[in-house]
């Protein structure tokens, strides 16, 4: 899996959690929170959906790694690679 594939999976999750957000123009380097209205409940859901859909575990201490799309890809791509 490439980092771009990984970003796409994260966007798929966000679009299901927050269908009322426009995700077409997300800037990967900028914090998701600064571009979208996502609260802590939504971030918990990203973690939970990663586990449900892809079997990926994100421990609470690593939640900060999910701040931007770029940091998500950086953090999650090796986890996907380990799994396959």
């Amino acid at each position, binding site marked *: 899996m490439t980092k771009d594939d990984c970003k796409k999976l994260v966007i798929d999750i966000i679009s*299901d*959690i*927050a*269908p*009322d957000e426009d995700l077409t123009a997300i800037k990967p380097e900028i914090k998701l929170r600064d571009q979208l*209205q996502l*609260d802590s*409940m*939504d971030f*918990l*859901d990203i*973690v*939970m959906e990663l*586990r*449900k859909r892809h079997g990926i575990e*994100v*421990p*609470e201490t690593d939640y900060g790694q999910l701040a931007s799309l770029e940091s998500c890809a950086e953090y999650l791509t090796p986890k996907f690679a380990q799994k396959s």
Partner: protein
Amino acid sequence: MKDSHYDVVIIGAGMSGLAAGIRLAHFGKKVCILERHNAPGGLNSFYSFAGRKYDVGLHAMTNYVPPGVKGTPLGKLLRQLRIERDEFALCPQKQSRIAFRDCGLKFTNDFAVLDAEVAAKFPPQAAGWRQLVETVRTYDDVSLDAKPLSAREVVGRHITDPLLADMIFCPVMYYGSAQERDMEFGQFVIMFKALFLEGFARPLDGVRVILRVLLEKFRAAGGERRMQCGVARIIEEQGRAARVVLDDGTELTASHVISSIGFAETLKLCEPPHAAEAEANTGALSFIETISVFRRQPADWGWGDDTIIFFNDSDRFDYSRAKEQADIRSGVICLPNNFAYGQGQLPEGIFRVTCLANYDLWAHLPEEQYQADKKHWFDAAVRSARRFLPPVDDAVLAQAQLATDMFTPRTIKKFTGHFNGAIYGAPRKIRNGRTHLPNLYLCGTDQGFLGIVGAMLSGISMANYHVLQGSARS
């Protein structure tokens, strides 16, 4: 004998229990909702009688915001339950009023209307009013461990005219306060936002639309639901809620138990019992509600503008347990026809009046007396409420009337199980949902997020906080 083990058992298929169930089932928990009655909804349900459909509970769904407004409870709940906004088919109110003997305040889903009304009718209070609104806007009302504050005290710091204070408290208390005369400030903030900063809406077909959406989500997520299946006992073993015994003697085991049936009501099921704690936090406020069905639309009589009217004619608004069977000095009128339904409209005119009542004075009446008293208070409540609407001849109304129905504190007790028919449950809310047992939690009315949107958020929050976050960490 163990018949079955669940990750989570939820007691009660009301708004909060269903919402908790959807969250848990969506994330793969094996979950079962147990409901004593044959209809879901709890406090907010519906029934058919003589070929007509009635709603109970719901006058209007509070917390309504138009599409595109984010970060409010309605938006959070839709996201958390993966519900599309259109599924609830919400139609906004037209306008509502707070109608006191010598003063009225109009409000709509646009807060500027109420803001201007207060400034025009209470000029010396305008600055204090703005401060109060600012305090409400910035208060963290969803904190699970906030220190309790008296709302009367906080409001009194900003609003010095008792008439204006009473007029603000009247709708806020009627739509959610379990406490007499005062309420916890966090609860006040939740209701103030829900009613005034957000607003009212309703699906044309009423509360059943919302319940159908919840039931379908729960089913689709793989949740199990057992109806006519009450819980008789929760048995403690080694300091945990170990077993749940049903009315028919069946036993279930669960890793977590979430109860939506109320604080005292839940403690009373526990073995060994915790009677003193339950006793010390049991609600006393109950209501009567009349429903009149007419062959004509309310608009025919000039009653077509107001969706909800909160009325009071006593010198000071007295939100406390009625001294007689009902206290008709104040109350709430609901005209469900007066939402902006677009092309649609309810086929018949509906007029509902809600007043404070006294459970003890209704509870033990012989049937004949009960029926006679219902008739007496039906007429009295309707007469009292009509003073706040344009006058219509008695004969005209009587001629147009197709049916009536009424609930009393006794009906509330029967269908919700709440002690004392206390519609809003315990006066002291348990915000973090914890009980004396580490795997037994409360959600719904006694957790303290109010209104039906609040109830659903309560179920969501408690499922997240006690079950899902814990498992996300493990």
